[in-house]
């Protein structure tokens, strides 16, 4: 059976991808074994590829072969001595061969069973931290020793982003990973790996929260936030009053400084407003906005009587003009009264009128004796036209249906009836010639005994439908 070295050597002779089956033949091992060997070699970076596309040796694999390095697999390969074991575990931990050689040399200069010494040697040889931990733990388990307390943090510590100083101390922690940003002028600025205060996501979230807060509270320095002040609110109220129109009474609002902040209060017309500023700031003026939208400074403790709105007074009467049988009627109703418009046409009463002004030939409106325009009632005419249109449509539909029925009657029933009539006529003729009704004038096949019909037309031969035997006219007539 081929070893893993044989597999690597077999691959070294190939310049292109080779399938697992071909490689198995070449290396002299079974495919299953070879797959495991190739998997191990791939883990070490000596080969590349897969079972589908094939396998190829990597430069690292060639280098390994050139150095005549024997990859230890069995106990015999590994060797029973401590140095061989240490090298073997280094290879398993994916440490590069040069570093393995140097580190083992250093370790063997002291006590290889002293784990602190082993860790120090590995650190001095700059073995990468992850591979170092793997190598150290493999060696520790081989020696059946626990982790020394003083090495516990180093061996089981965080793996990502860890850095070491010259003494082999882990200084950076995973907490610092990604904290590369600080916030300058509401923008996240990259200041170097681990040198900042926030991760990018944290910085963005924080800036978003700041923006939202400043929008509602306002920032003292005006740093980008949209702060609301009293003038903005008074403008807003003015706009609301404009939208309401002249009919609605304008309201008076006052801002009061309280412990909770600035509070907007509506001033009821005719009601005194006590401006209490116990919770407000002493250095800020008290403002009031009257119905005209003018902002005035007020002194505390004063009573403010808001006068009622001076807009246009609401209408007192409603004028209604409607068409009646007596002509156009103008009616007035008090404002607020419910007016019910009775439509006699809808109520099933008399005929409603559709007024249409009458014009003369010159296009001028026709006036009656009192000088008022004359209106024509077009309602009956329109009804008559509508009736005529419906009648016409109904006639057309009826005509179309009639034509369809006629067409259907002309086609299928008549054709079928023609066949039936012709068949009946043929039967009568046959009966007249003495044949039994329903019994075909036929010829009995001498082959199969089937009686089949003989056509009344001229023919040269007939065929039995059952056995396909052909009979000439002479044979049939002779029967």
């Amino acid at each position, binding site marked *: 059976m081929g070893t893993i070295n044989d597999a690597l050597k077999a691959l070294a002779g190939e310049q292109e991808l080779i399938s697992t089956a071909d490689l198995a033949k070449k290396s002299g091992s079974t495919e299953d074994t070879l797959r495991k060997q190739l998997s191990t070699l791939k883990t070490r970076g000596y080969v590349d590829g897969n079972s589908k596309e094939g396998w190829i040796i990597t430069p690292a694999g060639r280098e390994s072969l050139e150095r005549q390095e024997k990859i230890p697999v069995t106990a015999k390969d590994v060797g029973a001595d401590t140095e061989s074991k240490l090298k073997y575990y280094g290879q398993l931990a994916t440490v590069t061969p040069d570093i393995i050689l140097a580190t083992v040399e250093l370790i063997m200069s002291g006590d290889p069973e002293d784990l602190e010494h082993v860790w120090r040697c590995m650190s001095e040889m700059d073995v990468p931290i992850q591979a170092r931990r793997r190598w150290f733990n493999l060696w520790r388990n081989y020696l059946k020793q626990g982790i020394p307390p003083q090495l516990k943090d180093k061996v089981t510590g965080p793996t990502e982003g860890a850095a070491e100083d010259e003494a082999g101390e882990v200084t950076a922690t995973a907490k610092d990973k990604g904290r590369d940003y600080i916030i300058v002028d509401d923008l996240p600025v990259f200041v170097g790996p681990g040198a900042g205060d926030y991760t990018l996501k944290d910085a963005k979230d924080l800036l978003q929260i700041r923006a939202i807060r400043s929008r509602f509270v306002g920032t003292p320095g005006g740093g980008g936030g949209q702060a609301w002040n009293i003038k903005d609110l008074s403008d807003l109220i003015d706009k609301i009053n404009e939208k309401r129109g002249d009919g609605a009474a304008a309201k008076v609002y006052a801002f009061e400084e309280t412990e909770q902040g600035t509070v907007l209060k509506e001033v009821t017309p005719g009601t005194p407003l006590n401006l209490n500023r116990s919770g407000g700031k002493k250095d800020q003026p008290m403002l009031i906005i009257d119905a005209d939208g003018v902002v005035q400074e007020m002194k505390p403790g004063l009573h403010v009587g808001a006068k009622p709105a001076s807009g246009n007074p609401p209408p007192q009467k409603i004028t209604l003009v409607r068409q009646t049988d007596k002509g156009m009627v103008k009616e007035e109703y008090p404002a607020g009264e419910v007016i019910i418009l009775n439509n006699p046409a809808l109520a099933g009463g008399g005929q409603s009128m559709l007024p249409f002004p009458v014009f003369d030939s010159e296009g001028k409106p026709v006036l009656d004796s009192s000088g008022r325009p004359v209106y024509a009632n077009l309602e009956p005419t329109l009804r008559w036209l509508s009736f005529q249109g419906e009648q016409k449509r109904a006639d057309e539909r009826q005509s179309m249906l009639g034509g369809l029925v006629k*067409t259907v009657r*002309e*086609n*299928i029933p*008549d*054709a*079928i*009836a*023609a*066949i*039936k009539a*012709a*068949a009946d006529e*043929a*039967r009568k*003729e*046959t009966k007249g010639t003495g044949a039994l009704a329903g019994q*075909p*004038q036929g010829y009995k096949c001498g082959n199969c005994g089937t009686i*089949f*019909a*003989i*056509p*009344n*037309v*001229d*023919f*040269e*031969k*007939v*065929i*039995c*439908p059952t056995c396909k035997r052909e009979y000439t006219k002479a044979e049939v007539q002779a029967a």
Partner: protein
Amino acid sequence: MSFMARSAQHFMAEKAARQYLEEIMPAGIENLKTLAESGRSIFATYISGCSEEKKRQMREELAALLKFGVTIDMVLEKAVRQQPEIKPIMESMPEYRKTEIERIMAFLKE
């Protein structure tokens, strides 16, 4: 002839046979047999009962079939397969079948 052309011919012959059978079979197979045995043309009898509009339509359809290479013989074969009851009429009397085809062709030339 390409595979597509043959398939199209086959399809059209099948459809034509089905349509004509649907139109004629309501007359009853016994009546059709009687007509055939008495030497009367089924096609001519059917056509005589059709309106001019229907005749024109049939003429157009049959002409279209011939234009696509679908012969009357092919349509009759398909009709026999679809309706085995008419097999004795068509197969036991080759002369009758031949006469029917000639009548149909004559109808097309009218």
